[in-house]
């Protein structure tokens, strides 16, 4: 009697939790599950695929847990009781074998997608690629468009269906650059260059986040991504040249001071600024003939 009451209570609680869950998620946008970028979409599908594979194991486990707990409860005198039954090669083969097969499939998928969804991999497209140099600061994001001679703070206008190639570095404690709607996040680190390739396939405004704690202003380090049509993007970048503010080494130093700020648009007066920022931290190596050179290679993290 008590057992039945317990089971009923558990079922009721589960039902209530499911109802609560439904009520909570109803109408909510899940950036990761409803992406608007080609990379994010592939990653979302990969997530669902992997989740599906896992259910092959999870569903039997939960079922067996419930059934065995019920059937082999000591009050059930009709159930078989075999206190020394500890071996069964068939069963062991199944539960070693099936997980091995699942993991083998997943390993293959992992290897393939680690390459196809490698953040460094350029996105194939007939359209031009927009280059953006990203500098993570305390506590804001600086976006430099070297081909257009402009820069922005905390706002990232891009064109849809256009590959965006990011080169990222930092001038602040290690941070992570993430636009969940578009896909893959990547760390932005002092003296290092990481790279990211994303492409939006829908016009809209998306949220960007910092993903690694870097001090007091961390929670304010958000940015907005404006995915515009190609025409609108060109209009914007032209109008940005009208900005009275200039991004020079001097104004950059002011910008890099620890504080938070809103959106700014600047004229890029110093095209070598990004390189200069990275060089500040660059390791100077001594070569064979005792001259100093600086290391600056792409995929510098591969050396790890």
């Amino acid at each position, binding site marked *: 009697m008590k057992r039945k009451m317990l089971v009923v209570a558990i079922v009721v609680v589960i039902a209530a939790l499911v109802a609560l869950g439904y009520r909570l998620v109803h109408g909510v946008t899940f950036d990761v599950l409803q992406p608007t970028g080609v990379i994010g979409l592939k990653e979302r599908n990969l997530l669902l695929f992997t989740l599906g594979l*896992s259910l092959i194991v999870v569903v039997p486990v939960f079922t067996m847990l419930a059934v065995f707990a019920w059937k082999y409860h000591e009050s059930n005198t009709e159930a078989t009781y075999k206190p020394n039954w500890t071996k069964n090669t068939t069963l062991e083969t199944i539960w070693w074998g099936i997980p091995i097969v699942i993991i083998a499939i997943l390993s293959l998928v992992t290897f393939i997608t680690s390459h196809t969804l490698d953040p460094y991999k350029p996105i194939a497209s007939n359209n031009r690629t927009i280059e953006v140099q990203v500098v993570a600061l305390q506590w804001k994001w600086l976006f430099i468009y070297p081909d257009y001679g402009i820069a922005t703070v905390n706002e990232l206008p891009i064109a849809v269906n256009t590959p965006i190639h990011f080169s990222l570095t930092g001038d602040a404690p*290690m941070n992570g650059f993430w636009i969940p709607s578009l896909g893959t996040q990547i760390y932005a680190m002092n003296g290092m260059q990481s790279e990211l390739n994303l492409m939006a396939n829908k016009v809209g405004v998306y949220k960007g986040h910092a993903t690694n704690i870097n*001090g007091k202003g961390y929670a304010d380090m958000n940015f907005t991504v404006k995915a515009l049509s190609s025409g609108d993007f060109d209009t914007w970048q032209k109008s940005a040249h009208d900005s009275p503010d200039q991004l020079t080494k001097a104004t950059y130093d002011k910008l890099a001071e620890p504080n938070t700020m809103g959106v700014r648009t600047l004229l890029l007066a110093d095209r070598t600024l990004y390189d200069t920022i990275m060089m500040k931290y660059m390791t100077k190596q001594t070569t064979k003939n005792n001259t100093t050179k600086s290391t600056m290679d792409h995929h510098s993290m591969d050396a790890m």
Partner: protein
Amino acid sequence: MELFANLLGRMSLEYFPKEPATIGAAIGMPLAVFGVVGLLTYFKKWRWLWDNYLTSLDAKKIGVMYIAVGLIMLIRGLADTLMLRLQTAVAVGDQAGPFSTDTFQQVFTAHGTIMIFFVAMGLMFGLINVALPLMLGTRDVAFPLLNSISFWLFAAGMILINFSLIYGGFSNGGWLGYPPLTELQYNPGPGVDYWIWSLQIAGVGSLLSGINFFVTIIKNRAPGMTFMKMPIFAWSVLVTTVLIMLAFPILTATLAMLSLDRTLGMHFFTSLAGGNPMMYINLIWAWGHPEVYILVLPAFGIFSEIVATFSRKALFGYKSMVIALCAIMVLSFIVWQHHFFTMGAGANVNAFFGIMTMIIAIPTGVKIFNWLFTMYRGKILFASPMWWFMTFVVTFTLGGVTGVLMAVPAIDYQVHNTLFLVAHFHNVIIGGVVFGYLAGVAYWFPKMFGFTLIERLGKLSAALWQLGFILAFMPLYALGLMGAVRRLDHYTDPAWTPFFIVSGIGVVIICGGVFVLVLQIALSIWKRKSLKAGGDPWNGRTLEWSVPSPAPSYNFAVIPHVSERDEWWHRKQHKLAHAIDHYQDIMLPKNSSIGLIIGGLAGIAGFGIIWHIWWLSAIAVVAIISTVIIRSNVEETEFTITAAELKNAEAKL
């Protein structure tokens, strides 16, 4: 004045807490401590405490102290959690939370550090101390004095981290303290140093325990107990100690390097002057990943014992379980990079570590099936330890699923450092580690103290923990998928708030579960006469149940000779009475205050380095070395229980 100022390093008035929350903690905690001290004085229990616990070299007593500290720190860690969830329920848009950003960042750092190093490690070492020697049919661990030293080093670390509440503040860099944030350039204050030294000191204690328990299992087993006949819990501890011995030195070295950066201006992990923060991340996770297996493997061992005992059936596939444990041990060293797939290492490196990570899921999954089929065709009694087992399977399996998800680098790219990650690791740590050690406490409590805990309250606690867990963490998975990153003290999207509120309610329910646990212990102590337990309250299978409860100081009057796995069950089944006819003198270690002294000195040394009081640290270090040398010259470290005394004691039990 100058000389005086130098004598106190960089201590100054500015380091006292300034905000209401921190001031409250700084007053409340010492009050609690003084309260305990007052009670001990009033009831004149100091002598008893000193002789029976503080200077005891008996593993059973040391174990109880570890568990006590672990449970107290659990309450502290949950207090931190309540603060975090209170903040996130409120701090949306323009609304500020009740705590400043600085406080919030210290609180989540303290929360993680305390839960891992002082709750999980404390409960783990406590239960191993309480149960392992008894299970192995021996009197104590291999090195009882070292055992005491390990505990007091652990306690010293715990005291340092709590002292930071009163003076200096704690680190704000997260429980792993990534540079360059934790370097002098961005964090010159004492907080990070408190973090470094409380972990460094406690870490040495853990390392010494690893050596101690390894030698105990290799050398202290009862005659006849071959490796394949020892309880599976002993296997899980053996594997864990190998992990401890290989991994903890990495932590020691890495914390030392960070400390050298901060104290002597070196450049291991600084941004400038050639330092490499990525090196830190690699090193700390090379320790960090084995660490989480160190935490969970003994819990798996405990569940193995519990399932077999309460199903009245031998563990299914003992050999497979051993193989699985060894496989997990080896694999746990080659997966660490999955903690930073997003650092940009390239496709092949990410793929390798991702695949290795998934492979660990195989032996782990095998263990779950073995447990299920131990239940199959058993006769299961659902005492409170089995309730914990049920909550473990449900919770840990879910956590395993999200772990496999995150093992795929391309998926991790979208969930790393979000609340999805936070939900995953709490899922496996609470499901595996916390439930496992709470089950262990429920299971071995009668052996420790001679009376059982009130069963109903134990079951209620498990139920509250399970419900609380779901409410606290399922919303976090959703939040992560909504783009919510971790460690935010405020946010802009009001759509997140309902999820944070539900999560907060879950935390409150978990606190309810802990409240019930504390109530359970208190009421059980009060009613202990009616809850009296004999040596074998659970109809157990292993040797600890063959001695009275609580076990006598010498564990076994005569060391048993073992012929089977689950020797005690075997003896009961075949009605093998073990009438003892022949007692011999027993030698046991005398009490010693060396552990306390060394722990205390280590704490002082750490304190000195944190505050740049160099002369204090130097004296403390020299004192530690002197203590060791003096102790090594002490000849009479044991006392004898004669055969006659033994016979009398046994007759009384």
